[in-house]
């Protein structure tokens, strides 16, 4: 079960939940009223128990017919009524002055949330939604004009509304603290199944503290990620581009492009993405507005993302005590240039370093325990030097 699904997370969920439950029980009654008599009659009048003379052609029974017309009719309009009232709850937006209005943009294949500017005029943008508990939140949703229809679906809140290019659709919630899933419910292509995000409902005080800051995420969610990474993720770039390895998601991998391309190239690619398409890919990337400083942050993130983990591992294992990265030999040979060595050699050199010593160095390196994943990261780091 999805997180928070059963907690009546929002006012809408309570109303729609009630409508669904009432519908379930009445439907079971109606189902039994059809299938029960059917099974009973099929058993009662089974062929080997009925003599031909006992068959009767009953073709009308006014009272019965009136009964089985009116009672289901009444039930149907009970359903209609509760369907209507729960819709009214879900679709009547609370007054704007008592609500937080958050703009949502759905694009292939990510969700972006833009918050009202804080006192300093700073506007937060996030991929996951952060909102205060027990407060009305109105979502004003749209999609880029050249994009397709999406649908913003929060199962735990029982709410969903299509996100249509060129239109603004709205929905609202008022929820308890917790984390809830967002899914795209209107088919939108290749990564439709991965157009996921989360709603984080946090205490009002935490929310206020965050919104008045310039932090990219509320304190409890801070990952220590660089600003560039935050931007990369909150703009949904990671939906289509990998940076930490060379796998192709939708668009080309950005690993290592900082080597050959300038920040200016990246800027062009973000602002006018379809001008110059990499071979074998189609023009589908939506344009994104970003300041020059932000682009510089993203650029430095892309430049370092692939190797950041490896660098951290090397750092924490104290390798830099004996090895350099600039080519000058120290107690051991420099890491620079080791990228040409094959992965098996590097693994051996870490786990059993003194088996095969580089010429001119002494066997002084201690063996280090590292998982295969860590070794892979280190290898990647070395290759990028």
């Amino acid at each position, binding site marked *: 079960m*999805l997180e928070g699904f059963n907690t009546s997370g929002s006012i809408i969920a309570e*109303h729609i939940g009630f409508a*669904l439950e009432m*519908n*379930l029980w009445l*439907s079971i009654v109606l189902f039994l009223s*059809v*299938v029960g*008599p*059917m099974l009973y*009659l*099929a058993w009662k*009048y089974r*062929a080997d128990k*009925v003599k*031909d*003379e006992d*068959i009767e*052609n*009953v*073709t*009308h029974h006014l009272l019965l*017919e009136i009964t*089985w*017309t009116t009672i*289901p009719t009444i039930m*149907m309009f009970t*359903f*209609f009524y*509760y*369907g*209507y009232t*729960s819709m009214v709850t*879900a679709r009547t937006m609370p007054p704007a002055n008592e609500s937080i209005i958050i703009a949502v943009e759905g694009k292939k294949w990510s969700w972006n949330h833009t918050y009202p500017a804080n006192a300093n005029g700073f506007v937060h943008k996030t991929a996951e939604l952060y909102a205060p508990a027990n407060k009305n939140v109105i979502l004003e949703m749209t999609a880029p004009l*050249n994009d*397709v*229809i999406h*649908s913003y*679906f929060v199962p735990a809140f029982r*709410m*969903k*509304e299509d996100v*249509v*290019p*060129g*239109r603004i*659709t709205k929905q609202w919630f008022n929820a308890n603290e917790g984390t809830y*899933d967002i*899914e795209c*419910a*209107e*088919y*939108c*292509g*290749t990564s*439709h*199944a991965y157009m*996921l995000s989360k709603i984080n409902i946090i205490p009002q005080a935490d929310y206020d503290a965050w919104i008045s800051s310039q932090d990219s995420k509320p304190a409890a969610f801070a990952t220590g990620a660089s600003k560039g990474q935050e931007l990369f993720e909150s703009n949904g770039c990671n939906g289509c581009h990998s940076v930490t390895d060379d796998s192709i998601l939708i668009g080309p991998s950005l690993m290592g492009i900082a080597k050959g391309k300038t920040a200016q190239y990246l800027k062009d690619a973000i602002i006018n993405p379809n001008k110059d398409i990499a071979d074998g890919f*189609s023009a*589908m990337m939506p344009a994104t507005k970003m300041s020059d400083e932000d682009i510089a942050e993203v650029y430095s993130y892309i430049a370092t993302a692939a190797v950041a983990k490896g660098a951290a591992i090397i750092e924490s294992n104290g390798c830099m005590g004996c090895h350099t990265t600039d080519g000058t030999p120290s107690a051991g040979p420099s890491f620079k240039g080791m990228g040409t060595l094959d992965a098996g050699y590097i693994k051996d050199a870490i786990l059993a370093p003194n088996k095969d010593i580089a010429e001119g160095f002494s066997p002084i390196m201690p063996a280090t325990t590292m998982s295969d994943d860590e070794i892979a990261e280190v290898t990647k780091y070395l290759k990028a030097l």
Partner: protein
Amino acid sequence: MSKSYLDAGETHCAIGHPKTVFWQWMLTVDHKRIGIMYAAVMFVFFFIAVFTALAMRIELFAPGSQFLDGDTFNQAFTLHGVLMIFLFIIPGIPAIFGNIVMPLMIGAKDVSFPRLNWFTFWLYIFGCLVALTSLFNFNITEGEILFNFADTGWTFYAPYSLNTGTNVVTTLVAAFILGMASILTGLNFLVTIHRLRAPGMGFFQMPLFVWGIYATAWIQLLATPVVGITLILAVMEKYFGIGIFDPSKGGDPVLFQHLFWIYSHPAVYLMILPAFGIMSEIMPVFSRREIFGYRTIALSSASIAGIGYLVWGHHLFTSGMSDVAKTIFSFLTFFVAIPTGIKFYDWIATMYKGKIILDSPMLWALGTIITFAIGGLTGVTIAMVGSDIHLQDTYYSVAHFHYAILGGVVFLLFAGLHYWFPLVTGKLYNEPKAKVAFYLNFVGINLLWFPMFIAGYLGMPRRYFDYLPEFEIYHQISGIGAVVIISGLLLMFQNFLSSWKSGEASPLNPWNATTLEWYTPSSPPPLENHTKVPYVDFGPYEYHYGQPKVKFDLQTMKRID
């Protein structure tokens, strides 16, 4: 032994008098032969679509990507939908049994426009071929064939269908051609039913299957042109970029949804009404008594067809339509539920004080009462606007649709296949095998789709090729159900084919039925059906102590009771 319509040379042809059996089939205008050819083609596409679905179920057996990537999966469900909807279900029962049985039931020699019927069949085949060409990109210079089927889903929603690089245009054109074939079939049947009923047979002496076909034909005639032109506008849009549905040029993508569902919602009644007709044939025959509430059933078909035009908006409850419109569409939708419910009670009342023969057609019919009740009632859930906000575009809708269409339309089509198999082939099928096949199908459908109601309620969206791990168990039960139901389908068709080849010969009226199609001088019937057209001054389901009341001398078609 007189000759039957299946014997060589026993056919009228559209052009000339061909000598070879092959050309006699290709050019035949005989309604029975055309019906059989429709069935043959349709079941081939049906099984292609079934195995496409199986591939998707295998892919979904575990989270993550197994052997399909996202794009291929999207093409797979589009292929499944397009084949099932446009090539199989929509034309299905009218084209197969409407052709084979309906003229026999009203005592006609053929449909009103036999040559048009022949043309329509080949138009249908042409549409199928166009649909098949859209599977691939043919790169002649490179000698390559690339799989490039549309990936839009069978609904072709704009603007997705306008932006995607796959073969949407040919798929749209195929759907348009198939739509034309559907219109012409409906037109032919309407005129046939109005003009060619045997003397004395008024509308209320017609068998209820004919009523179902009649109501269906009106939908085919009046709703199909709307989707036809919508598809053409989408093609114009794609070629010339006039922007009718394209928001980047100022158009309104939701307009496409409206136009699409103006047809496609009545289309689901177009699928179910003839199926209800089959149910109305089987219930009295296997209860050996007159049907309960003949007029109510007949008129409820007509009213479902009528109301069906006014409810398309319930597909758009979360599309950004105004709340007033949602309320109206929801209100109207409940009016469809009422006549449908009444029909069900009428069928069950037909069993009262009858003699229930549990042969396989009846088993299928009773099984359908259960599965369609589930399909129908879950449809009521999503007719409630509030509930639909939560359930729209989830597995709940998927399960509802399959319970209603597979568990309603296709199950009744299978019931009809069993019921009319002796009439069409002159052979009896293997009854124990048929029963096993039924139980496999019945267990299979519930295993396959019932878990989806739960998964959908818990928030599993449709058209996902990968999913959150919370939903794994539901997908796995579904996967097992898929294997069960497919083994049932294979067994059923194996039974049909082997019985046709080497089954026992069928007596003239194996089920003790009362409707005219069983009163032909031979089994299977001769070329021009009844030896003479009977005069009809009796109701369609007249039984007396479990035996058909009306008896004919089959050579003169004079009543001898």
